């Protein structure tokens, strides 16, 4: 039961993020939706490596606990978070430029302005 709730929560985060990514009319909100989807994916990975009764995979006082959670997904999530920060920074840098050029971040207005420029 606990597993169903936790997995549904993580999948729901991904679904909310992707729905927001494609539906949001403001470009900055699309970036925020991407962040939500990312955290959902990270949560799914963490849950896949969780073990009931498992301890942190870190040695205390010179010896490892007998039952540990899986360290591999944790390492993957660690790197995924850092890559996520890099992607967000790149996306926001692009948004800054879009705002400077077109004066707005509304998706429909930016698209119209871009099409106008392309068809020139």
């Amino acid at each position, binding site marked *: 039961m*606990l*597993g*169903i709730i*936790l*997995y*549904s929560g*993580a*999948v*729901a985060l*991904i*679904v*909310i993020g*992707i*729905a927001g990514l*494609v*539906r949001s009319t403001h470009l900055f909100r699309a970036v925020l939706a991407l962040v939500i989807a990312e955290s959902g994916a990270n949560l*799914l990975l963490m*849950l*896949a*490596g*969780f*073990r*009931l*009764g498992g301890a*942190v*995979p*870190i*040695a205390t*006082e*010179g010896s*490892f606990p*007998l039952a*540990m959670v*899986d*360290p*591999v997904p*944790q*390492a993957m999530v*660690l*790197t995924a*978070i*850092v*890559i996520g*920060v*890099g*992607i967000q*920074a*790149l996306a*926001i*840098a*692009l948004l*800054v*430029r879009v705002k*400077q050029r077109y004066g707005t971040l509304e998706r429909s207005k930016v698209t119209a302005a871009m099409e106008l420029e392309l068809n020139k």
Partner: protein
Amino acid sequence: MSDLVKRVEWTPLLFSVGLGCLLLPLFLALPFGNSPMVAGEMIQQAAQGVQGAVVDSVGAANLVTSVVLAYRGLDTLGELAILFAAATGAGMVLQSGSAALHQNTKMHKHIDSEINLGELFDSAATMLTPLLLLVGVYIILHGHLTPGGGFQGGVVVAVALFLPSWARNGGGQLSHKVISRIEGGAGASFIVIGLVALWQGDPFLTPWLAQGELGELFSAGTLPLLYLMVGLKVGAELAALLKYLAIDEQVQS
């Protein structure tokens, strides 16, 4: 026209709900809290000193660190490359336009220096910077013993590097030359440490210094050194990114 808008709005919703319906059964098929761990089991057996373990132990108290830097060290190198590409890309995007606006900034500079964020902010930045640097370096250097490491500590170091220049409204505290030298040197050192292992006849990025006592600061071979390089690189990259965004904001205002 309104028909088209409605259809376009419904399709993505349908897609995302469908994706959820696809993902959920897949993950529910995993036994929760008892999922199989193949690589994790091997690493744990090696760390616990079980006889006949498949992989060698690397002697780090934090198993996540041993996965990040030893068993999957090449992935971490690739990940550093991605971070570098993202930081370079953001720098390129933001700098290309600000070159034209640079004269504008120079003109406004005397105005900028008058906009002071206040004595309190200024003093707080001065006092916090050494403290933040200390905490960041501590987190980096203890990455193989406690939760933390180069990525987390690097972010703290980045804030420490960026804070003075932010508090003084871009007072030029952060030299771009120094930042890029730190970044390049750290990245090169990471690769050189990996190449030494290759020269000794081991695979690339195999830890090669003495493993030492489990839980000591000087243990786990080259892992602390590698994490120090990761920390410096992440710190320098994020500080440069923050600086680009801050300069841009000033140009705009």
